[in-house]
């Protein structure tokens, strides 16, 4: 395979379509759940003023909410963003609602960066890449409407594909997140000495089962040490191992364990799901399509 095939070959978009649905729903949820906090966090009555936020984020980078400051209008803008994210998720006029949702999401993040966490940043990043990809070619209302149209052109498997370059950029970005995180963690001591997982799981701020699970952590101290060290090496190696077909299930499988574990054990709501969703970009679209078709066949066969 040549470099040209790598960037300009065709890739199946079924996995990306599924990723669009999940990311859109999460972005909508993130915007809707902030509406009750508008007054205290994002309006002209917020505890962090717009000027202070601009200083934090660099004054060159602005937010819609520097100009929309009335709490009611800020809330309305966020609701609009959430609705656009849902339209994007469903693949209805996909790109325009996606752009509106992206601009509003960025504005929310810039208006008050001090209440963000990892899932906010990754959702914003994935939304940007999904806007580059014609993800409405799969699993979308747009595609369904095109099929129903009287002048419909017959859909072929090739019509669910696109040039690979935006998908490649998304794949590289996912690898970059892990590489940057791995490099950062290698500067500390907790991951190399194996204590990092204990500090995360034993922290009442983050731990979902504190203090009930503490006796369990005492019993499994050894595995926690091993997993801390393994996680560091996994993050560092992720970008270099995931391109290999035979290694990919192992690399992604460990990711499912790590992010699934974070989701279950820690109160870091969307971080686990959003990173697991990103794996859909790393799996071949044909495999995702095959999986969905199998599910559909089973559903059709099931009684009732």
């Amino acid at each position, binding site marked *: *395979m*040549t*470099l040209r095939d*790598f*960037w*300009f*070959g*065709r890739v199946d978009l079924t996995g990306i379509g599924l990723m669009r649905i999940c990311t859109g729903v999460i972005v909508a949820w993130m915007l809707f759940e902030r509406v009750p906090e508008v*007054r*205290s966090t994002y309006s002209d*009555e917020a*505890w*962090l*003023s717009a000027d*202070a936020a601009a*200083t*934090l*984020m*660099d004054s*060159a*980078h602005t937010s819609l909410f520097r100009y929309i400051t009335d709490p009611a209008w800020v809330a309305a803008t966020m609701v609009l963003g959430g609705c656009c994210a849902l339209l994007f998720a469903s693949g209805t006029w996909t790109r325009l609602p996606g752009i509106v949702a992206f601009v509003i999401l960025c504005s929310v993040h810039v208006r008050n960066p*001090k*209440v963000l*966490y*990892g899932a906010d*940043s990754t959702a*914003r*990043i994935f939304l940007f890449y999904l806007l580059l990809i014609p993800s409405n070619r799969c699993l979308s209302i747009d595609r369904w409407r095109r099929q129903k149209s009287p002048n419909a052109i017959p859909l072929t498997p090739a019509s669910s*594909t696109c040039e690979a*370059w935006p998908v*490649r*950029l998304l*794949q*590289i970005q996912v690898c*970059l*997140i892990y590489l*940057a*995180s791995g490099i*950062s*963690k290698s*500067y*500390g*001591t*907790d*991951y190399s000495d194996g*204590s990092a*997982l*204990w*500090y995360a799981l*034993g*922290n009442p*701020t983050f731990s979902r089962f504190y203090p009930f699970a503490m006796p369990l*952590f*005492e019993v499994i*101290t050894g595995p926690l040490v091993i997993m801390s060290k393994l996680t560091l090496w996994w993050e560092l190696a992720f970008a270099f191992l995931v*391109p290999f*077909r035979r290694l990919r299930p192992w690399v992604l499988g460990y990711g499912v364990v790590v992010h699934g574990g974070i989701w279950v054990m820690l109160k*870091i709501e969307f971080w686990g799901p959003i990173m697991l969703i990103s794996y859909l970009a790393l799996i*071949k*679209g044909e495999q995702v399509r095959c999986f969905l078709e199998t599910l559909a066949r089973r559903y059709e066969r099931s009684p009732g």
Partner: protein
Amino acid sequence: MGLQGLTRHFVTPLEREPAVWTTAIRRGLISCFIIFHLTALAWWNFGRTSYATTEENDEFQLAILAVADQIDASSAVRSVLKGYIRSSGLWQVWILFGPDAPHYTGRVEIHGIESFDSAGRPVLDPTPIWTDSAPTLTERTRMIGAPPCGWDATASPAERFLREQFARYKGRLADPEAKYEGLQMTCARWALPSSPGEPIGAPGFEVLWAGPLRPTRGER
């Protein structure tokens, strides 16, 4: 193994489009964008030369935005790329619990001030009006206690925030404004033990804000 080996698993090659000149120009432009984008990402994320220690980690997430030009050796290129990176929302590759997981936990409490003693010190209702250990709340209250941008910590944003939190719990209290002279917000922090068997020690308390109940500017 060369690039071919690295890349073959990702691609489903189909028939190539005819190499007409419009396609060539289009692909040339896309290639330029790809090169620019990847260069920007690499420079932005790996162009800096220092990482924060554990205790600095929370502030690091902002410091990397605010003083990035000072801490890396590539400030000129970075400032050129800044417009693109910020507009595309790619300004932060999240570093979860890096370089180290937090070694402490915190909880924010709001107490009613029942009276002031002869030295002017507040006498608190020992039962907190409100308490929470959510990370973002701890973060925002730390901002009120130690504002990073030089605004006046006693100015209205902190007070508004406190009053809003207070108002949320008004329903549970009978005539709270008559009962209390004022409010005090405190952040309690505990250092975590280094292993599961050890107990958590006594907390350290930091008063983030204290003051009388009075109308905010907007309510006057």
